[in-house]
């Protein structure tokens, strides 16, 4: 073998072949009690915790204290320690009405992203309800961090408002600004209701008009619209700049494999293998076990026959890394070379993992 222990090989190799894994959806959040200023903040982290325990193997579950605040060092180890992921993309979640310093802001994420700029991509956000000030903030994020994308939370509370739509006139003004600034990746949370946020503000229908009005931007619908997978797939089938982010669907692989097979089959049938994107939603789920579960998952014989799709090596390479690499102009080969002796590879002794494209003689 040409990687470390057998256990490590299982994590980042699949049938002897390297798969470069970009975790398209990670957070560095602060839900400590000191940071919560509205009861919605406590409800929110409790609801996240329910999702965590529901789809995490029992022996890998965290306790509530470590879940509230895990910190930068632990995050680096969880993502890269066993080479489960090669890179991560930060998706901020501000929630400043619930948390004093925000829950998971670009500034908070920047702590790690600027320390390891080759390993992390740092995204920003906007909220059209912030008007002129919001536009200025978006430009500030662009200037300070050169953000290549934004994560949008259409159900976020702001004062009396319980959410906004991506096809509003105000939103279009922000999308125009994104286009001008070269912020091309628009990630929208369109998924399960997170108590106490209102369900309808996660309606996926507004993606349709936004995506057809901004063909130069790419719209990544996080959580593939669940519980509106049907609306999402139908929109994505018609708009080829709409992508599906697998967070929430991915951990079905672990304890509902038949369901995972069915959802993945639908996605591959409606969107094709080039527009489905892996994300762990860390720290809701941890790539250190999730990546392997998803890689090892299989489509049932029945679904393969019904849908005529495959979850094979080529498809996995695309979904686990190549698709989002294309969106973010990430050169995977160049990254592999750069990671041979970067700080993280040194810290976790991952040099062999990036040693060569071609399998060579055993070296351990």
């Amino acid at each position, binding site marked *: 073998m040409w990687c470390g222990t057998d256990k490590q090989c299982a994590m980042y190799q699949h049938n002897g072949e390297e798969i470069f894994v970009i975790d398209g959806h990670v957070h560095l959040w602060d839900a400590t009690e000191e940071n919560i200023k509205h009861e919605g903040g406590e409800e929110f982290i409790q609801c996240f915790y329910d999702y965590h325990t529901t789809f995490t193997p029992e022996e890998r579950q965290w306790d509530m204290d470590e879940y509230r605040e895990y910190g930068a060092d632990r995050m680096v180890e969880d993502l890269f320690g066993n080479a489960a992921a090669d890179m991560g993309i930060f998706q901020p979640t501000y929630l400043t009405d619930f948390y004093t310093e925000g829950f998971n802001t670009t500034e908070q994420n920047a702590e790690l992203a600027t320390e390891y700029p080759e390993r992390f991509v740092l995204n920003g956000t906007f909220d059209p309800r912030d008007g002129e000030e919001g536009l200025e903030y978006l430009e500030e994020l662009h200037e300070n961090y050169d953000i290549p994308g934004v994560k949008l939370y259409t159900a976020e509370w702001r004062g009396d408002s319980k959410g906004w739509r991506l096809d509003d006139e105000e939103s279009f003004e922000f999308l125009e600004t994104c286009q001008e600034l070269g912020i091309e990746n628009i990630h929208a949370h369109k998924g399960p209701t997170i108590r106490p946020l209102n369900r*309808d503000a996660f309606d996926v229908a507004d993606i349709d008009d936004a995506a057809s009005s901004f063909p130069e931007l790419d719209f990544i619908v996080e959580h593939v619209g669940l519980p509106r997978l049907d609306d999402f797939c139908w929109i994505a089938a018609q708009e080829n700049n709409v992508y599906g982010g697998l967070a929430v669907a991915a951990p079905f692989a672990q304890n509902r494999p038949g369901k995972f097979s069915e959802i993945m089959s639908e996605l591959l049938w409606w969107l094709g293998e080039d527009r489905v994107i892996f994300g762990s939603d860390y720290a809701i789920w941890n790539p250190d076990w999730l990546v392997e579960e998803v890689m090892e998952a299989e489509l049932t014989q029945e679904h393969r026959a019904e849908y005529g799709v495959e979850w094979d090596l080529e498809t996995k390479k695309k979904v686990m890394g190549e698709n989002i690499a294309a969106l973010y102009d990430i050169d995977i080969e160049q990254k592999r070379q750069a990671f041979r002796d970067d700080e993280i590879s040194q810290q976790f002794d991952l040099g062999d993992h990036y040693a060569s494209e071609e399998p060579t003689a055993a070296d351990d």
Partner: protein
Amino acid sequence: MSTQTSDDTAPTRAAIRDRLDRVTDPELDRSIVELEYIDRIDIDGERVGVDLTLPTALCSPAFAWMMAIDARDEVESLPAVEESRITLHDHMHEAEINRGVNEGLSFAEAFPDADGDVAAVRAELDEKARVARQYDAIEALLDAGLDAGAIVALSRDDLEMTDSTDTVAVYVPDRSFAVTVPNAPIERYLRKARETALVSEPADPLFRTPEGDPIDAESFALVHRRGRLAQVNLSSQGGICDGLREARERRTEESADD
């Protein structure tokens, strides 16, 4: 109701269960009886109490509200029932819901802080349920040998009850012959199609696109795929809700052990 006795005697348990069986979890489109949400039924003369516990306690107060209201209305539709009392347990909004449902309040009255309209949410979920049920009905017709052209041309008056209650005769449009198919998926589809105000006239096309339009034969395959997708969506959400319920139960047990 055939299971009903005369007006001046108490309603039967079977009649009440039969009524409750028509109530669905709107997000999953499955009967609340089949899903085992009903904890108990109390019959006291003309007064009936129904106790419910939902696994979707974490999913939405609006859905809990719909199920409680529907249970009340179904039970009270029995002539032998004078009054029902619905009691929802272990839900974070049980107080508001129990009070609202039993005092005849509207959703907006029961939840003054709620944003959005429960009727619109219900209509949207009914639409999804209709599309998912259509998939099963069409599968039954395909199994019976009908082709796309014949299926999209069907109207309700092409259906004819047979002597057996388990099957229905379906005439092809020129009425030259009929095929016999299982009644259950057809009846289940028709019930939801009526609820969504489609197929109200005998000559109306039986099957529709998710948007409610008649289907042309060329787009039949795609529309049928969308029906399958609607089913996958409903059952995926069921998987999430089941999972959340199990996780919550484990935690409740653990804290009870402490």
